[in-house]
């Protein structure tokens, strides 16, 4: 049974519809990440799940029960806020125990629960401190402790790592992942950081302008994006999107990428594309991830469909572990993710290769994947 079910959820502020019919289900123990650009409605969606904002129509079920009109404290949820929202006038222990105190849990039982959570999060030595005496990472942990102590059926995280510096963010990301793996909790997590989404989620929901673009596992979202928005949004550097034309060559359908000199790179139709959706002469958008643009030496040995072409190197960006090389194909910049010691020189031609196993096609009119 799904722990969280959202059915055709709509939310209007006056005449503006900010959530336009959202359907998501999350299994027990799942980790759902809501991701999208600013203003896409992901935080509003989280707030409606928490009950901090009402909904205009639709249904939210937690553990099978409809919670549309339930007060936030009655929904069996806990929330970790972006600013941590620790009560500044209370000690760490009081912060963690406040919810239980409000529900009239006896002090002895409360202290025991606080101690056990503090042990899990390794913040026992901080229990008597005030939030102002804690570092960012410690505050983050206390905020998680306050959520954990309730043992809710769903945890809600609202961009919890965005206030931390880059290094601490990576550490806390690992910690949240470990917490999820060890406790088997169900989590809904909002972020605008696609790397957080990829690394943490068991299920990603990509939103844009209040509409769900795609829901799926990280690998589905990454390798088979439903449309050009998802393809562009997920992944860093972004997927290369090139304009091509469907043509007949040698009795087979091919994708032709026109080059400046009048020639074109002929590509077989990627395995991911449905041939029924391709009409001769139609324009298509050819999408390929930077790591699938490479040269012979570092091409994936298992690649089944590889097409080579020459291009001159425009920009080289060494990133330590990889080198990003920008070349020009079909009038557009294409980023190739090559190994760190790749033998490329600025302005020099080099033979590159597309790994078509990882390529996708989009319809430029609807932006959907073919």
């Amino acid at each position, binding site marked *: 049974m799904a722990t969280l079910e959202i059915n055709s959820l709509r939310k209007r502020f006056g005449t503006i519809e900010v959530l336009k019919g959202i359907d998501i289900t999350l299994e027990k123990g799942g980790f759902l990440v809501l991701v999208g650009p600013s203003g896409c409605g992901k935080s509003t969606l989280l707030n409606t799940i*928490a009950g*901090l904002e009402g909904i205009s129509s639709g249904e939210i079920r937690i553990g099978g029960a409809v919670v549309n009109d339930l*007060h*936030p*404290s009655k929904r069996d*949820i*806990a*929330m970790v*806020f*972006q*600013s941590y*929202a620790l*009560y*500044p*006038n209370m000690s760490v222990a009081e912060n963690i125990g*406040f*919810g239980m105190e*409000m*529900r009239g849990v006896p002090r002895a039982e409360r202290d025991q629960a606080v101690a056990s959570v503090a042990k899990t999060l390794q913040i026992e030595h901080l229990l008597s401190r005030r*939030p*102002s005496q804690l570092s960012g990472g410690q505050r983050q942990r206390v905020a998680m402790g*306050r959520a954990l102590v309730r043992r809710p059926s769903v945890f809600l995280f609202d961009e919890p790592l965005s206030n931390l510096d880059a290094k601490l963010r990576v550490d806390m990301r690992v910690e949240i992942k470990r917490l999820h793996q060890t406790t088997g909790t169900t989590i809904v997590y909002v972020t605008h950081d696609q790397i957080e989404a990829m690394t943490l989620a068991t299920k990603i929901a990509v939103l844009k302008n209040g509409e769900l673009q795609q829901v799926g596992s990280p690998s589905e979202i990454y390798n088979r994006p439903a449309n050009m928005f998802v393809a562009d949004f997920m992944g860093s550097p972004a997927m290369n999107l090139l304009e091509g034309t469907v043509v007949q060559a040698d009795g087979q359908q091919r994708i032709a990428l026109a080059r400046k000199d009048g020639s074109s790179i002929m590509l077989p139709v990627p395995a991911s594309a449905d041939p029924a959706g391709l009409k001769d002469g139609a324009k298509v958008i050819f999408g390929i991830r930077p790591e699938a643009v490479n040269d012979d030496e570092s091409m994936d040995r298992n690649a089944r469909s590889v097409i080579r072409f020459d291009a001159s190197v425009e920009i080289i960006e060494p990133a330590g572990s990889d080198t990003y090389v920008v070349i020009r194909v079909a009038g557009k910049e294409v980023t190739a993710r090559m190994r760190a010691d790749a033998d490329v020189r600025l302005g020099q031609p080099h033979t590159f290769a597309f790994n078509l196993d990882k390529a996708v096609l989009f319809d430029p009119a609807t932006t959907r994947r073919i």
Partner: protein
Amino acid sequence: MSAADLVTSTPSRRGPGHSRTTRIVIYGLLFLFALVYLVPLLVMVMTSLKPLDEVTGGNMFALPRHLTFAPWSMAWGEARIGVSETRGISGYFFNSVKMVVPAVLISTLLGALNGYVLTKWSFPGHKLVFGMMLFACFIPFQSVIIPMAVILGMLGRIGVNLADLTGWSFGLGNATVNLVIVHVIYGLGFTTLFFRNYYAAFPSELIKAAMIDGASFFQIFRRILLPNSTPIIIVTVIYQFTNIWNDFLFGSTFAAGDTAPMTVALNNLVNTSTGVVEYNVNMAAAIIAAAPTLLVYVIAGRYFVRGLMAGAVKG
């Protein structure tokens, strides 16, 4: 980061490197103005410690030759106040205390509650309601006296009826209670303004977190908001205390005779037209009348500047 953290940081005092001359001019001017402001108080204190013949016959700026505290005890316990039978200003002093303490506490608490609702539970039309409350800040005292008298008269009649029914008027019709009501109503605009501006900058996520923790409307107010409101509470208390303690118009209009507050009694003492004018007693009484507000400033003054800044910058 709590709202309280934001207002406790003091700006750096180190300016650019001033030359010696500039510094002498700056401190000289500051000293001069301090002196100008302090001279009247000094004269008052010195006069109040002189016997009467020394006051009438001597130099106002001369130090007392025969130090005496008699004018102080006269002012406190024996001086004749207007036509009243009661001697000394002590009774009136406590009239003021009995009026100021409840009026300050009630108006501050209600202001905090208003600020909480207007910022964290905003309802349709909350801006209009706040605008009208702000308007109350700008209504001159004089224009509300007659309507206020009518309403207090009605309350007084209700009090008489209640006394007939239950044997107790619930304080309605009592002059001190009337003044408390007047000052609470009049102060509400200001206290609401202070707290609204302070709470507007108070993180809403704390309220949301408390809601998820299951705290009720008043629990959030009492456990989360109020404990983090110390600076603005101090500002409001100082402001209300000073205003209400120093009020003369409402006091002289709605409380007569023995129920009058300190300010009215001081006026009656000073304006006595019979006998010799006892300047030393008058001065002692005036200092006693001003002492509570001075004391409040000295104790909590540094919060006043900080708190006002907080409201101004973040409002």
